[in-house]
């Protein structure tokens, strides 16, 4: 056989797996292929037999059937009469909602905690260090259940806590004032966006000028003026967004934006848990910059803020970005723990769908594909950002 000829042709000490192109390597790969296809075929035929025995057929046709799943909260219009497709979409949107808000909040909190961990104040350093260790070394499921229990111990709607005007905390969750989606709001947001873009253009022009002439001009004040001035102008022009305040009416609140205790517990749990990990990443990143860099920057006479921004951060970011990416992905994946406290995320809705339809393979394939897609998109975005940060270092 070909394997024996290959053995003769090769030097004696070639080992079990030789170089590619050789017959042995080819054989191993063919065996792997056969094993994978064979196992897949075996699984598939078993699955078909099992499904047939339960009166089911493989296919995604059930997606167009009415789901009959009551979902407590949904960013889009939904009723139990809607299809499974729509129910799963609602689940996905709920996952994305908690993931996006969570990522934004945990980044801010994580950076603050990481900086506090590096503070020159030993008391603050110690307290934050202890807090981070406790959070990092207890399971997230436990923390989620804990936050949920805490939120359910809040007073009833009629005795709702009112820490800030328009903000109500009760067993039914959190109520905050809402901005009505109408032309005035869009005009206001467009003006704010224009201000931000104006600041960015100004920064670009001034940086080019500094490179060309060495002259530095202030950018913060004119930038802020644009960022705040444009929306102010739009307000003055009569585009005043309507704020809807929550009000107690009967046994529940009316108006305003409502966050359920489940959403809130999940958000707090994810943010607290992930920010503790991000804090350690930020701390390690900043500490990874050599002491000499600080000293050199100080010797150049740079003020502390600019040392951080121009010298330390660009180098620290190279260390920070890759583990930060995996924390973002962890947060998104961990949001699937919503099922433990009853927040209707993708996995939770999918689980109910499986119980109702029995189409386990199809539903699981859908949500696994969705999570893989989210993971790939997030990694791609962060890799793109990482390559920009890395390039900055090259220059």
């Amino acid at each position, binding site marked *: 056989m070909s394997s024996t000829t290959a053995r003769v042709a090769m030097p004696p*000490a*070639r*080992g*079990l*797996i*030789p*170089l*590619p192109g050789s017959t042995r*390597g080819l054989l*191993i*790969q063919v065996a*792997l*292929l056969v094993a*994978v296809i064979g196992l897949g075929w075996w*699984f598939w035929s*078993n*699955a078909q*037999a*099992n*499904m047939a*025995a339960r009166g089911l057929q493989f296919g995604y046709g059930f997606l167009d059937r009415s789901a009959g799943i009551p979902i407590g909260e949904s960013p889009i219009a939904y009723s139990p009469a809607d299809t499974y497709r729509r129910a799963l979409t609602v689940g996905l949107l709920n996952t994305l909602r908690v993931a996006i808000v969570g990522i934004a909040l945990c980044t801010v909190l994580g950076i603050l905690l990481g900086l506090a961990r590096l*503070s*020159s*104040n*030993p*008391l*603050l350093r110690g*307290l934050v260090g202890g807090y981070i*260790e*406790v959070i*990092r*070394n*207890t*399971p*997230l*499921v*436990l923390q989620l*259940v*804990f936050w949920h*229990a805490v939120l359910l111990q809040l007073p009833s709607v009629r005795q709702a806590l009112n820490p800030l005007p328009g903000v109500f905390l009760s067993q039914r969750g959190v109520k905050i004032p809402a901005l009505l989606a109408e032309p005035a709001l869009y005009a206001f947001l467009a003006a704010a966006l224009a201000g931000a873009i104006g600041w960015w253009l100004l920064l670009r022009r001034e940086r080019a000028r500094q490179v060309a002439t060495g002259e530095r001009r202030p950018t913060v004040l004119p930038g802020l003026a644009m960022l705040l001035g444009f929306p102010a102008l739009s307000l003055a022009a009569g585009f005043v967004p309507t704020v809807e305040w929550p009000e107690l009416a009967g046994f529940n609140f009316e108006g305003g934006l409502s966050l359920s205790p489940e959403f809130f517990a999940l958000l707090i749990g994810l943010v607290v848990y992930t920010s503790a990990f991000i804090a350690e990443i930020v701390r390690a990143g900043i500490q990874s910059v050599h002491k000499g860099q600080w000293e050199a920057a100080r010797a150049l006479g740079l003020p502390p803020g600019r040392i951080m921004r121009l010298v330390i951060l660009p180098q620290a970011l190279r260390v920070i970005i890759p583990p930060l990416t995996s924390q973002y*992905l962890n947060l998104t*994946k*961990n949001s*699937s*723990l919503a*099922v*433990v406290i009853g927040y209707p995320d993708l*996995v939770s809705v999918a*689980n109910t769908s*499986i119980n109702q339809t029995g189409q*386990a*393979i199809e539903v*699981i394939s859908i*949500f*696994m594909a969705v*999570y*893989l897609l989210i*993971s*790939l998109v997030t990694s791609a975005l962060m890799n793109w950002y990482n390559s920009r940060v890395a390039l900055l270092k090259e220059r």
Partner: protein
Amino acid sequence: MSATTAPAGPAFTERATAFLRACFAGPVNSAITLACLAVLYFAVPPFWAWAVTNATWNGNAETCRAAGGACWAFVREKFWFSIFGLYPYEERWRPATMIVILVAMVVASTIRRFWGRWLLLGWAVAAPAMWLLMQGGVFGLSFVQTRQWGGLTITGIIAVYGLALGYPLAILLALGRRSELPLLRWFCTAVIECVRGVPLISLLFMAAIMLPLFMPEGVTIDRLIRVLVAYTLFTAAYMAEVVRGGLQAMPRGQYEAADAIGLGYWKKMRLVILPQALTVTIPAQVNTFIGLFKDTTLVVVIGVFDFFTTLRAALGDPNWLGFPTEAYLFAAGVYFVLCFAMSRYSQNLERTLRPESR
């Protein structure tokens, strides 16, 4: 505090002065210190009063409610239940023995002097022995279904068996991912990335719901085995990435030297590359294991009663309603002690394994 109470008097006072000086260096630091003290002032005394001063250590739910503080009597009452779950009462010596063996093996594994062939052999003997002890049906032991296993016992079983089964698989996956055979490399990469890209609970759902569908009719797989399949796969994928890091960190010269003395692939890996690659990544492996250990709590989603879920179930006891905070704090304390010990151990290893980097 007087200097006589501290063992190293002058050093202690010096450190205390340095601490205070650092706390009040400049107006900003003083403000931060005062803010921290304020937080402590508002948080610690009420917590102390609840957890210690007004707490009930002996008694029942009535005495707990009357005292108004923490009801540690509840935790005491449910302690053994949280360790053994629903395992038959008169057979509890079996999970107890299993835990003793497990702890002994884990402690032996943390001592560097024991690292080697005999330790591996010990695990290879202990792992099936522990399972047999729990399951029974041999040597006159009565048969106990895995459905009746529970509590801290099952948390330990999932974590340890997941690691024991997942670790060899992780090494194979990591080697496969760095193989020169394209199909093998793609296959291993796909497995690793797909498992790491989805949440563990979706793997658990898959094992719980899809695995039975994939088996021929009439074949049923024990639920705990299904959990272990999912958890092993998860452990393998995450550990594989750690091992791959170690393989990549090996200098090329090591590979070339092994080739030059004529070692084949497996001998090269077993004798030269893996011993070094695995040793340098041990701290990272311990850290990954801490994460995996915390993730054992996720089995709650498919109804396996691990330590935390068993405690939560105890909350439903009609004689002891209304003490969730105590149960959660106790659970958090147990996980914290275990995970913190592991992370300290990993930091310690990091220092001792690489003395040249210090």
